[in-house]
């Protein structure tokens, strides 16, 4: 039976670096059940004992308001189901930022658990001219204090030594407490006694929890207790609060005053600071990186680099994965007899695996970039620079990176929203991110523009009409996203404006280990969690397109093939005729499949958009991913499924395709525009929807996203078609 120790501390104090250094490779990363808060555990070998280490999310206070903070409080108080109770704490404290860090330590002392302080970043403190009397600090806090430098792995042996009694549960609990006014303490005791006398609570309330219930009005602790004891406790609580106040002061302010007063006294005894605050290295870097002109230019360059990497650098690897999987599928299909099994393996399983793996290069690259930007401290600067722009539609600067990433692909974009603290801001960003024009829309645009938009110069010959159309459909998403976010923030996610109060951490060189681990775990989670569902959706759509397999069609085409073999002597011509027949047969099957029937059935819905049933069918088939529409159109028009956006023959076929009357073209300019507008605004991407489900924890958010985007897409396409037809663009 080994002890469970928690590593706690403020954000940006090098907690993860220390955790990695202590546990090495023996780590488990996942999420806490039901929330996307990272759960990291590992084992640490100590002198003669091992202990389980939990790396809790960084937090500034035990007054919980965000999901991260709630997890920290729950785990520390032993109230999170499925988590072991904590035997001791390792508090990581930033020596160069002692004052605010000790504020948190003063709260940790009230947990009444054995505690060791790891005084990190001693090198930076020394560079800033801070002299810390470690022995005096240890005496003042009543706990062991070990100076370390987690980045350079200095002092870790001493820390392990100090942790050994923790692991053996032999370290006494410090008796040091931050002094609070007498009135507050007696009111607190009365509140705790009152709560503990109520059997409905079914547990003893920890003094620290009682403290939070009292001080944090409408806070997490209060809500949880009131849920159990009922709202009729509210007047009593108000009375306890009134008794705790000194001269009517606010309790939160009273807490801060007491704690910072206590911290100041410790600082005065244990720390010698230079008279004049020397300009830190970070401050000098910030003079450039957040400069009005240079800062903005550098920011745009960095973002361009991030965007370029996920947009173009990932492309060759994605193509490689794509062709690798098709080649593998081809090789396997040669082994299998033609029929349902072959189709399931090639068009179902391999296509399904491919549609998951194809996202990996983008996800790995983006999570690497985000990990680097976060670890070096630039992320906070990016939010600082962009905040004003985003505050116009009710969001904050933290939404910038997710939005930008979504231009490459909404999935890494949605994953990137994890850095947004406020839930309402985060959900709004997740819901509008799929509106950004991702790379999967490009094939749809390219084939339709290539086939239907006349190549002529406009605006005095400066730009081509084709380029202009591409720009227009690309911008459409952003233009719609702004009012959408604005509306969401005023309806579904209405509420108090979340504070934008961020620490600007000191710059530091990112640690390769921390960055790589983060990217690795994020990518693995995507493949495992989202991957299975994306795979399932692909198989379902495959089945819809495959069944029922009519024997009548098979017989007709067998006869036709026999006829070709009989009548065409020349080998090459025979081969070409047979290939054409095979494509025609595939088309016939698809048209008579369940999917084709659904397409016919819902055609009336899409008729006002100028679409015939074939476009409707291809649109439904492209539910797993937008780009599938190109291949499906290829099959529907008897071209075979291996058509892509560069295919001239598909372009010509689309131009020549006629409706059943044999005269009206299936697609003209208004129809092409209406398809593009539809695909610009719709959420035909099961991978995105599955990712939204995973990140929000509920199905209603992906359903809402799909619903509102499809509505917008339909209305947009409807207006486009009707308007351009009225203009006479339909010819």
């Amino acid at each position, binding site marked *: 039976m080994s002890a469970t120790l928690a590593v706690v501390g403020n954000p940006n104090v090098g907690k993860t670096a220390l955790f990695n250094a202590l546990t090495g490779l023996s780590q488990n990363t996942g999420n806490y059940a039901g929330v996307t808060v990272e759960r990291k555990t590992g084992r640490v070998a100590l002198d003669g004992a091992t202990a389980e280490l939990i790396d809790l999310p960084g937090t500034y206070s035990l007054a919980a308001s965000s999901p991260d903070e709630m997890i920290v409080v729950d785990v520390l108080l032993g109230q999170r189901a499925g988590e072991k109770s904590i035997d001791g704490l390792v508090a990581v404290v930033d020596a160069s930022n002692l004052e605010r860090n000790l504020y948190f330590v003063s709260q940790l002392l009230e947990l009444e658990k054995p505690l060791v302080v790891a005084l990190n970043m001693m090198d930076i403190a020394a560079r800033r001219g801070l002299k810390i009397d470690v022995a005096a600090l240890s005496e003042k806090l009543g706990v062991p204090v070990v100076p370390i430098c987690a980045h350079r792995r200095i002092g870790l042996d001493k820390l392990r030594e100090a942790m050994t009694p923790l692991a053996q549960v032999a370290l006494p609990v410090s008796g040091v407490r931050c002094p609070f006014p007498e009135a507050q303490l007696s009111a607190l005791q009365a509140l705790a006694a009152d709560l503990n006398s109520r059997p409905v609570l079914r547990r003893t309330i920890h003094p620290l929890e009682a403290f939070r219930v009292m001080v*944090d009005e409408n806070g997490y602790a209060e809500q949880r207790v009131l849920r159990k004891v009922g709202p009729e406790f509210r007047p009593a609580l108000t009375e306890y609060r009134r008794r705790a106040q000194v001269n009517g002061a606010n309790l939160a302010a009273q807490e801060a005053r007491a704690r910072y007063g206590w911290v100041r006294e410790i600082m005065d005894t244990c720390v010698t600071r230079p008279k004049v605050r020397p300009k830190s290295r970070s401050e000098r870097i910030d003079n450039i990186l*957040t400069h009005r002109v240079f800062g903005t230019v550098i920011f745009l360059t960095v973002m361009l680099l991030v965007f370029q990497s996920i947009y173009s650098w990932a492309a060759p690897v994605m193509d490689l994965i794509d062709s690798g999987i098709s080649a593998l599928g081809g090789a396997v299909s040669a082994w299998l007899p033609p029929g349902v099994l072959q189709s399931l393996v090639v068009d179902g399983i391999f296509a399904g695996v491919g549609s998951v793996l194809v996202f990996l290069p983008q996800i790995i690259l983006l999570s690497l970039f985000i990990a680097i930007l976060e670890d070096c401290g630039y992320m906070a600067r990016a939010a600082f620079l962009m905040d004003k722009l985003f505050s116009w539609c009710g969001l904050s600067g933290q939404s910038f990176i997710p939005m930008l990433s979504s231009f490459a692909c909404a999935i890494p974009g949605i994953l990137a929203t994890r850095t947004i603290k406020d839930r309402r801001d985060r959900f709004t960003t997740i819901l509008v991110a799929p509106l950004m024009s991702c790379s999967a829309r490009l094939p749809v645009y390219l084939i339709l523009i290539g086939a239907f938009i006349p190549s002529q110069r406009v605006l005095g010959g400066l730009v081509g009409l084709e380029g202009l159309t591409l720009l227009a459909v690309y911008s459409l998403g952003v233009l719609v996203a702004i009012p959408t976010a604005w509306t969401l923030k005023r309806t579904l996610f209405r509420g108090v404006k979340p504070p934008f109060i961020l620490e600007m951490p000191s710059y530091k060189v990112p640690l390769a280990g921390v960055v790589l681990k983060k990217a690795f775990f994020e990518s693995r989670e995507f493949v495992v969690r989202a991957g299975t569902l994306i795979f399932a959706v692909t198989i379902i759509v495959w089945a819809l397109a495959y069944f029922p397999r009519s024997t009548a069609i098979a017989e007709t085409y067998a006869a036709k093939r026999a006829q070709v073999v009989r009548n065409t002597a020349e080998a090459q011509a025979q081969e070409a005729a047979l290939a054409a027949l095979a494509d025609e047969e595939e088309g016939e099957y698809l048209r008579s499949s369940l999917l084709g029937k659904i397409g016919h059935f819902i055609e009336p819905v899409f008729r006002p958009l100028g679409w015939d049933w074939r476009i409707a069918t291809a649109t439904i088939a492209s539910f797993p991913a937008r780009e599938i529409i190109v291949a499906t159109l290829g099959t529907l028009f008897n071209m075979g499924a291996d058509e892509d956006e560069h295919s001239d023959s598909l372009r010509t076929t689309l131009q020549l395709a006629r409706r059943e009357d044999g005269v009206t073209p299936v697609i003209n300019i208004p129809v092409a525009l209406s398809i593009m507008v539809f695909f610009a605004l719709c959420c035909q991407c099961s991978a995105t929807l599955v990712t939204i489900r995973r990140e929000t924890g509920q199905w209603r958010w992906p359903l809402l996203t799909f619903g509102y985007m499809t509505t917008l897409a339909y209305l947009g396409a409807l207006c486009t078609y009707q308007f351009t037809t009225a203009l006479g663009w339909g010819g």
Partner: protein
Amino acid sequence: MTCTLDQLKRHDRGVVSNLRGIGNIQQRLLEMGVSDGAEVEVLRFAPLGDPMEIAVRGFHLTLRKSEAALVEIEA
């Protein structure tokens, strides 16, 4: 002389004397050390004029002007 934090210019210094009102924002400011008696210095404003960056209790903090308007300063 009393003013609010958002009214300070770049490089101005002052001491926090009070937080106006109480709520989510004030709670967060208090945790981050913006409480009475804390010395603050305005380091810079973002290129679009908002938010601002300050030095407080030995570290750097960014906040919006609307939030800084809740912080009373004894300059």
